[in-house]
């Protein structure tokens, strides 16, 4: 267990260092997220009530697309100079690599969300009518749902020719239940029309199921040629 956590920590630290130096993922995500906010705010001019109804969808669609940019970058580094082979020949467990990658992506997307959320609030004049603090567990669970599957499918599409296209094709359909739960939970908090508890529980269940499945299957994905 300590070997897994040591390797996960070392891989995560390495990924953060590489991202800090290159800023490949964070710059692309920020640029993309900013574009979505600006384009949508010019496209619609909603009143406060309408904003509350559509903001959940807009916010999560923006984060989903921005996350895909980061997810594509995360494995690209491992393919350059075939560094992934150095991991594959080592005795390090595959799950340590997967956990580190998923945690790294989670961190990058959470940073993006922290930077973009104030912009969404300003541009769409948002004010939650329900308990606003519940947006935090929704953000955490929703982001994990996106990155855990995203990290897995990005690794799966690593050796395909059109991996940038392949990732959304694989990720979006399987993320639909999570996206639905995120959007409905966020809208429920913003409008206070219905309780968000059901959607949060659904999101948490989705996370547990897919995290377990990804951890069980990642060894096969990593060792595939």
């Amino acid at each position, binding site marked *: 267990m300590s*070997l897994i956590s040591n390797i996960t920590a070392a891989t995560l630290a390495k990924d953060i260092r*590489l991202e800090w130096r290159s800023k490949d993922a964070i710059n692309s995500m920020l640029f993309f997220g900013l574009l979505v906010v600006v384009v949508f705010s010019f496209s619609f001019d909603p009143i406060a009530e309408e904003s509350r109804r559509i903001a959940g969808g807009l916010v999560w669609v923006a984060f989903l697309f921005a996350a895909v940019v980061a997810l594509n970058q995360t494995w690209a580094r491992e393919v350059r100079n075939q*560094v992934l*082979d150095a991991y*594959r*020949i*080592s005795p390090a467990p595959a799950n340590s690599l997967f956990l580190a990658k998923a945690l790294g992506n989670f961190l990058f997307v959470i940073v993006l969300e922290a930077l973009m959320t104030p912009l969404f609030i300003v541009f769409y004049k948002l004010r939650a009518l329900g308990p606003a603090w519940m947006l935090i567990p929704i953000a955490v669970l929703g982001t994990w749902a996106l990155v855990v599957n995203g990290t897995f499918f990005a690794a799966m599409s690593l050796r395909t020719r059109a991996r940038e296209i392949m990732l959304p094709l694989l990720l979006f359909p399987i993320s639909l239940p999570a996206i639905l739960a995120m959007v409905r939970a966020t809208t429920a908090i913003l409008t206070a029309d219905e309780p968000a508890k059901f959607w949060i529980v659904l999101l948490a269940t989705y996370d547990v199921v897919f995290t377990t499945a990804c951890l069980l299957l990642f060894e096969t994905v990593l060792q595939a040629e």
Partner: protein
Amino acid sequence: MTDSKSSRHPNTPIVVVTDLVKQFGRFAALRGVTAAFEGGRLYAVLGDNGAGKTTLLRALAGLTHPTRGSISILGTDALRSVSSQVGYMAHPSLLYDEMSGMENLRYFSRLYGILSDERCRQVIRLVGLDPELTRPVGQYSQGMRQRMSLARALLQDPKILLLDEPFSNVDATSGREMVKLLGQMRDAGKTIFVVTHQSALLETVTDEFVWMQAGQIVRRTGGPGSAPLVSTDQSPGAERRKPDSS
């Protein structure tokens, strides 16, 4: 040359390959390779492009799954269980360009459970580089990158070293230094496989030349009890002139 070396390491085979076949679609990169390799020897694997040298090395490293046949390393066919005893240097560097040599090795050492930086410094010095060099690997010369790649392969002090084209783009002096180092490691008991097109460079330290052609081992020269090597020129004409001792 061969007699003295074989008497120095009278070992049983530690790498055994049996009827190894690897197909990529309809193309067979390996066609029933069967061979046994003793420990503590340096094998130069030679052959034309597409002969199957790299595929054989990748199969030994556990990176390529055979379509058929088996590989036994250190008495087991569960290659993952002996992965810390095998060091692999590929044609690409297997290093992160954005990190320094020391940062790269520090990360890879953690994968082998090595928590001290001293081992990283030791292998960097061993290959003739400076562990204090802060420049990212992406800014290294090709020769420096090759040496750092060798240092990464040596990190866990493996018993078996698999080196794919270690001398490509390396200047003559660096090449000779690397050969000297390989000789020292062989003398220390390591089993080394070197895939190369520059066999002349390895002439002084090689125990056995393994010739591959069209996915098969077609000849082994310089093994125990064989005639001494007269040439390491890889031209087809030169190959025909050599004594066939396999």
